[in-house]
């Protein structure tokens, strides 16, 4: 098991380096002079030179690259062009909000998605199945930003049940996390349904039925355990969708996470902060998938021997 974890960790290193290289290239690929772009329209030539020096853009490219990597190893992401604070501090101050949202949404999506999928599969081709399948199709087609706005219209403006924006009240998290979970609920439900239907046709399930077990026992005890294996992978992969969706959801609800910070930084041309946040999102995504792979290998011993 430990060998497997180490092997996966080592395999993730080139990917992380590649991600860092792309993020490094982002600033250099900006149309025009990046220092001037960041400095803004009203900047004097001295300002531009100062920023150029601050960003290390006056150095030769290979030196810049090496410097970028060495600083990255020390978790130094540079300085925000807007606030002059270390990028790392800005991110750490906001990150907990995004993680809170993503974790709550994942929990909602897993519980509701698996339940809906099991319900649909165990009532295959019944009205319940059709209803759930239609609902999940709606779920994967709905723009997350629109779902958020409509939830605000109904539950915040008309019914006054939840706050429309911000993160100041305990109930503030309800609408954003439901919004964020929507798509993933639908996807997990579809995956659970088809996976369970597949497993229910296996020989060992027929054996379980033949030896006289009750249907609920066959479905929930024997079939579900195996059917949930591929669902674990989907949950890991969809964590990425959640992080991407967090950018939109946080913007809709004014939720003070790094997604909203990213959009604000793009508009403010605070590229050091943009780079830092993009890197953070990618690193989070890689780490979560690593954790899912390890979990998967733990649950399904066959994986480890491949």
């Amino acid at each position, binding site marked *: 098991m430990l060998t497997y974890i180490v092997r996966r960790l080592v395999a993730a290193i*080139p*990917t*992380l380096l*590649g*991600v860092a290289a*792309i*993020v490094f290239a*982002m600033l250099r*690929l*900006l*149309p025009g002079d990046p220092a001037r772009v960041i400095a803004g329209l009203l900047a004097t030539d001295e300002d531009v030179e100062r920023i150029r020096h601050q960003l290390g853009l006056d150095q030769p490219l290979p030196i810049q690259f090496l410097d970028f990597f060495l600083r990255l190893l020390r978790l130094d992401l540079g300085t925000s062009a807007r606030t002059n604070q270390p990028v790392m501090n800005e991110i750490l101050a906001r990150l907990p909000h995004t993680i809170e949202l993503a974790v709550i949404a994942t929990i909602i999506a897993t519980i509701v998605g698996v339940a809906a999928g099991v319900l649909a599969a165990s009532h*295959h081709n019944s009205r319940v199945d059709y209803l759930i399948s239609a609902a999940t*199709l*709606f779920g*994967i*087609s*709905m*723009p*997350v*930003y*629109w779902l958020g*706005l*409509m939830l*605000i*219209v109904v539950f915040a*403006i008309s019914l006054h049940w939840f706050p429309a924006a911000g993160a100041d009240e305990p109930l503030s998290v309800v609408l954003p996390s439901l919004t964020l979970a929507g798509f993933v609920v639908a996807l997990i439900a579809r995956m659970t349904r*088809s996976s369970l*239907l597949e497993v229910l046709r296996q020989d060992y399930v027929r054996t379980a039925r033949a030896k006289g077990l009750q249907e609920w026992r066959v479905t929930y005890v024997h079939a579900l355990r195996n059917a949930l294996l591929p669902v674990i992978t989907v949950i890991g992969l969809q*964590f*990425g*969708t959640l*992080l*991407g*969706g967090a*950018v*939109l959801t946080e*913007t*809709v609800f004014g939720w003070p996470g790094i997604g909203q910070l*990213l*959009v604000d930084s*793009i*508009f403010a041309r605070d590229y050091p902060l*943009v780079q830092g946040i*993009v890197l953070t*999102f*990618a690193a989070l*995504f*890689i780490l979560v998938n690593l954790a899912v792979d390890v979990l998967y290998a733990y649950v399904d011993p066959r994986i480890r021997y491949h």
Partner: protein
Amino acid sequence: MSTPAYATTEAAVPTPRAAPARAGLETWRRFRRHRAALLGLAVLAGFALLAAAAPLVTPYDPVVQQLRDALQGPSRAHPLGTDFLGRDILARLLYGARYTLIIGFLAVALGLVVGVPLGAISGYYGGWLDLVAQRFVDILLSFPGFLLALSLVATLGPGLENVVISVGIGSMPFFVRLVRASTLSLREQPYIEAARVVGVADVAIIFRHILPNATAPVIVQATVWLGQAILVAAGLGFLGLGVQPPTPEWGAMLGEGRNYIFSNPNLATFPGLAIFAAVLAFNLVGDGLRDALDPRLRTR
């Protein structure tokens, strides 16, 4: 003019060219039975028709402002009401369908043009080429979901072309993966080995013998990605980083409408519904195509 002898040989051998037409007919027969998919196709055809004929359907200009008529509710004159600059929302949606459909198709086309050959070459040759290509795909896929397109737009800047490029590159890794997987299994087929033994060039094997047999999953994936591309592009428009106002792009309309959500939710509701309907339609057609093209993949 070809010699008769040549023509005879050509006719005597059953040409593979005849097969696609028959397969297409068969696919259509199976697709037709899928009622939801037909509905999706009808919705898309409707959108395309309305987008093309927008000037005939509505008397209003989608961009010209009529401030006196701002923020009206639905009426006879304005079936969906007007926005904060007095522009007819229906007119903006109709003209906006052009942008939405064009962005979707161009972006997916870009993803296909780059992704499909890359996937085929990667799968066919294997070795270090495959290793490099797959690392590259892994790296792109590490920018989760919407973030890849968002990062690209942040670098390239907003605007129609940049949205197409960003969303297209965002879809590319998925096509590379898909085509590579098909190529890997097709490569081991006896008919490919036969072609190789006879001395057919690699390029010909890839483009004439492997890719035509790998099209079914690509078509399905491309259809579903049309929906995804629309979602992502509209998301960029919503944030104000996509197609810029006053262009009546649906995502940008939704983003502007957001400011009036308390007083006039119409402004945000209708563009959102339009995006939702278009994406749903592409997903339905994708499901139908999956069943029709490959009965083994049938969604139960």
